[in-house]
């Protein structure tokens, strides 16, 4: 087991290198003038371009620039992001908790809903309940996130005024900024609890409702499908049929035997799903003005903020490899049949 883990961890620097090299090679298609454009906002600053190119060494060959960047990273410095107006590492540290909080709550909802609906669908296969739940979940996957998000915003904020965009209301925002508030985790809901401020918790939750609803609706479909098919397969397995033939009622069979085994592939998938969530929040964050890493990532990419994009790539590669590793380990631990060499 430990050798397996070690081998997987060894992958990490390789993948990280590969991802960043991929980004850098894409950027080879850009001229120094285009890359220098990151630093100016108006064509009237164009005659500063040669100066800027000189200042940031943008006219050097790409591999030289990559090597410089690599050396910087090995010293713990991920560079400066023009789009975030702060060091890349600071920006990531600042944006990440917001996305993490959003992903966490969405993930919980997705898991609960997905597994419940999936199990229900499988047990009641081809009946009304099955069709209904499948229709709902498939509908969720069929609508572009931003459409659904905007409709939710329009109805629940524009019309009712219940759930505003952003992460905190004005008062809450000012309070969080003040010295009376101690940020322990960066997750506002948890921090509010730890600070004993119930109204703050309430405010944070209020702002979470719509983005979580948007994300949940969209991604639950996949989990329902997986759970359903996995459950179906398990229900067809010989030991289940034997148990039923022996006279055990369906519920008991499902509860005691089937679900545990059916959930195995779901667990593995859940890990991937979570990492996928972290990257899939881009559109949701844009629509709800959520100060997270997805929204920043897109802005940085659009403006070719190379230090930001490569730093971003690095962090993500790391998260993904670790996430995959956790999922695989969990899979191996939970399923005694699978033992990896």
């Amino acid at each position, binding site marked *: 087991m430990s050798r397996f883990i070690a081998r997987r961890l060894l*992958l990490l620097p390789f*993948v990280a290198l*590969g*991802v960043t090299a*991929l*980004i850098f090679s*894409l*950027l080879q*298609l*850009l001229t120094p003038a285009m890359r220098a454009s990151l630093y100016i906002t108006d064509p009237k600053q164009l005659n500063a371009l040669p100066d800027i190119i000189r200042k940031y060494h943008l006219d050097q060959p790409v591999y030289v620039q990559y090597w410089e960047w690599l050396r910087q990273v090995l010293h713990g410095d991920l560079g400066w992001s023009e789009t975030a107006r702060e060091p890349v590492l600071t920006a990531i540290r600042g944006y990440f908790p917001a996305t993490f909080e959003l992903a966490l709550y969405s993930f919980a909802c997705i898991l609960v809903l997905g597994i419940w609906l999936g199990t229900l669908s499988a047990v009641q296969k*081809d009946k009304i309940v099955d*069709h209904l739940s*499948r*229709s709902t979940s*498939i*509908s969720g*996957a*069929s*609508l*572009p*996130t*931003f*459409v659904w998000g*905007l*409709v939710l915003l*329009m109805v629940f904020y*524009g019309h009712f005024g219940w759930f505003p965009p952003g992460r905190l209301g004005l008062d809450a925002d000012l309070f969080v900024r003040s010295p009376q508030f101690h940020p322990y985790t960066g997750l506002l809901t948890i921090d509010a609890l730890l600070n004993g401020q119930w109204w703050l918790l309430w405010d944070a939750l209020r702002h979470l409702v719509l983005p979580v609803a948007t994300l949940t609706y*969209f991604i639950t*479909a*996949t989990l329902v499908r*997986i759970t359903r*098919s996995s459950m*179906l*397969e398990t229900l*067809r397995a010989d030991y289940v049929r034997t148990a039923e033939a022996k006279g055990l009622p369906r519920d008991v069979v499902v509860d005691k035997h089937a679900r545990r085994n059916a959930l195995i*592939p779901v667990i*593995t*998938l859940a890990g*991937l*799903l979570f990492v*996928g969530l*972290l*990257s*899939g929040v*881009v*559109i949701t964050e*844009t629509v709800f003005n959520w100060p997270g890493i*997805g929204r920043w*990532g*897109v802005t940085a*990419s*659009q*403006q*070719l903020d190379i230090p930001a*994009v490569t730093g*971003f*790539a690095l962090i*993500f*590669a790391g998260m*993904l490899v670790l996430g995959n590793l956790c999922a695989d380990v969990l899979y191996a631990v939970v399923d005694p049949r699978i033992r990896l060499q």
Partner: protein
Amino acid sequence: MSAVRVPSLVAPGAPTVPRVQPSAWQRTVRRFRRNPLSVLGLCIIVFFVAVALLAPLLAHPIERNPYMIPHQGYASDPRPPGPGHPLGTTEEQFDLYYGAVWGARSAFVVALTVVGAGIAVALTLGSLSGYYGGWIDEVVMRVTDIFLAFPGLILAVVIVAVLGQSARNAMIAIAVVAWPTYTRLLRAEFLRVRDMEYVQAARAMGVRDVFIIIRHVIPNTIYPIIILASLDMGGIVINFAALSFLGLGAPPGYADWGQLISLSHNWILGTAGDPFQYWYTLLVPGVAIFLFVLGWNLLGDAFQDIFDPRQRGSV
């Protein structure tokens, strides 16, 4: 990106027990007909195929490039459905009916191109990787690892930002993000089939590798690809729409549902007196995308029910 890939969940090499049963085709049709959702999916897709094929008849092209939506004037406020514009117009007066009809065509073009490219790459790389194994396999796997380690939408954004905004570049970007999944899937299937008895027999008999791959391996591995592709068709259109929403997809005025939705997103709140005043700008392309993706999702699910080897053997 949207859907998450279904990993191969079952231990490979499960032997198939020969039984007396009705022909594969009859079984397929029967199972299909049993499920109303599958039938619905099929109907939707057939409808869209018809619209796409008949586009020049349904909406006569006026501009030099038929994918550019004609516009009457340049006024920025959308107009509601009325004479001359059966479904209304978007901002800058692009006709929604024309956009919806030709959007069906461009949706198919985009989805089929990306899926085609993905399958093409997967066939080459995946077959080499799965069939020969060894260091080829390692290299290909590491490369797919690298591509998969990066959030799909962000990678697509970077690619379009570098290449320039156009429908073609957006397709390239989505294809670049999509190919690793197809390759991995095909490789897994190749690995499974490679060890099967009849393939081993053919090899033992001295049949050439290429022949084996084409004649035996591919037809037996195609089903998961079909499932993946049909589930992906909708996802690709949604990703294309997302790129348009971010201003990186097709240029404004291009007949593409995602483009139409992105043109509508400023008008979703309507005006002061009437929040639903511009409902048609969102509803027309929204319903089109929704039905298209829904159709493919249902169809993909149906294919999965039918072709899934785990469920093939049961009654």
